[in-house]
């Protein structure tokens, strides 16, 4: 009973299909408050669909999803903030207006919304870029603004869909450290979809490995050193490497069943 109430996210027997195409098959997953959950899996295994289902952007074909007690789509929509794969910053707004989008939607005036976002710009290494248009920002900067936009919405659950997939390796490592720092200072329940096992194990407390379509969970691993300040040290640690190998084995195994 106690365990039930501490669960921020509960997915029970969720299946989903688009027409005849079954993308998810009786999936179970749970996450505690402030836990960072990773979802890795081959392309097209329904990771992104699962994220949309959690966020209440769609209802699953079968099964239940509960986010902070809300089981209906509208309820989940109010408790989750979704960060899509591409940054999708709106080119007609400045960086700060993009970041403050949720506040504007929630009814705040422009100045109040900007004021609320300004503090976060400083904290997250974006000071000085408030008035910049998205086109003037680098890929890493754009992802930072996109993440702030998600964070600022003030939702208990963040759903991140391959947030750094489009970045080069060096920027991606930097952004992972940056996100780890952001989550250390501002902990949230996070569901992170990625195809990068290393990224998942560095950023997440727990990583679920999904099989190829129809997606089901084939392995669940605990990360040895989630979100430590020293990323390079963390990912070269033998324990980490062992966990990574285990995850990769599970991924390969999941593909072989096809």
């Amino acid at each position, binding site marked *: 009973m106690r365990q039930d109430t501490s669960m921020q996210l509960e997915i029970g027997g969720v299946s989903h299909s688009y027409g005849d195409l079954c993308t998810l098959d009786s999936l179970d997953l749970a996450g505690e408050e402030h836990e960072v959950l990773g979802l890795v899996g081959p392309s097209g295994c329904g990771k992104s669909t699962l994220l949309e289902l959690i966020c209440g952007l769609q209802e699953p074909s079968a099964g239940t999803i509960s986010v902070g007690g809300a089981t209906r789509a509208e309820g989940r929509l109010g408790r989750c903030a*979704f960060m899509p794969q591409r940054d999708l910053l*709106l*080119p007609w707004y400045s960086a700060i207006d993009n970041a403050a*989008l*949720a506040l504007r*939607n929630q009814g705040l005036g422009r100045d109040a919304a900007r004021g609320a976002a300004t503090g976060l710009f400083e904290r997250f290494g974006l000071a000085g870029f408030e008035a910049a248009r998205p*086109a003037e920002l680098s890929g890493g900067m754009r992802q930072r603004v996109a993440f702030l936009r998600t964070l600022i919405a003030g939702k208990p659950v963040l759903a991140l869909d391959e947030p750094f997939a489009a970045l080069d390796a060096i920027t991606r490592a930097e952004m992972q450290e940056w996100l780890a720092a952001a989550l250390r200072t501002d902990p949230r329940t996070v569901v992170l979809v990625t195809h990068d096992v290393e990224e998942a194990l560095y950023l997440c407390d727990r990583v679920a490995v999904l099989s190829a379509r129809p997606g089901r969970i084939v392995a669940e691993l605990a990360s040895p050193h989630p979100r430590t300040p020293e990323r390079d040290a963390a990912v070269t640690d033998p324990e980490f490497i062992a966990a990574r190998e285990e995850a990769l084995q599970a991924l390969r195994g999941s593909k072989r069943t096809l």
Partner: protein
Amino acid sequence: MSAKGTTRWRRVLLPGLLLAALIGLWQIAASTGAIADALDLQDFLVPSPAEIASSLWENRGLLAENAWVTLKEILLGILCALVVGVGMAVLMHRWQLLRDAAYPLIVASQTIPIVVISPILLVWFGYGIGPKIFVVALICFFPITVNALDGLRSVDPEAVKMMRSLDASRWQRFRRVEAPAALPSLFTGVKIAVVVAPIAAVFAEWVGADAGLGRLIQSDLAYYQVARQFAAVVVLSAMALLLIGLTTLAERRVVTWR
């Protein structure tokens, strides 16, 4: 910087030089009577640019008066097309059912021959400005509606999901994402409309009017006032070019992110 300056000069200078050369040639050919001889016409039927210019000056009051009428028809016609066209595009974007029902009819409306409908409008509504506005609006409605709808449909579905997840109401999604995204496309439609509107206005006047450049050109034809006819054409072209220029300027002021 200098390269950019050079191309700008070329863009203004080269067409200017070509135009000057053509006018010069015409001046020589017309003033020596070469064209009239070749076509076996009397000299006054082939006015030289200088004669057209002096007719332009002598008849400036009359031309301005009639140009004002035609300009009103063009502007009010485009305004009507803009209000109805953008309204229709928004409604068709909002309701798929309406789009499926109305879109074929909007395409079909383009097959109505203006040549046929204009005299009927004349019979119904008389010689005033109303039927002209209607013809201009009818011609401009299509490019505006189709382009506005295309613009609205060009919105990335992922951006809509992102906005829904950031607590945006339908109106906020429209106001902050769909409407700005549709603006460049809408301007394309307006530019096409602005190019065809003067032709539509002149044609509508041609069929029967009590004022306007089209009517002036037509009545001058009856009295062999060829120089003033050309002067009216010059005024009409200048007006159309001015409208296109203003539209482009407005586009640059509004669509600042391209």
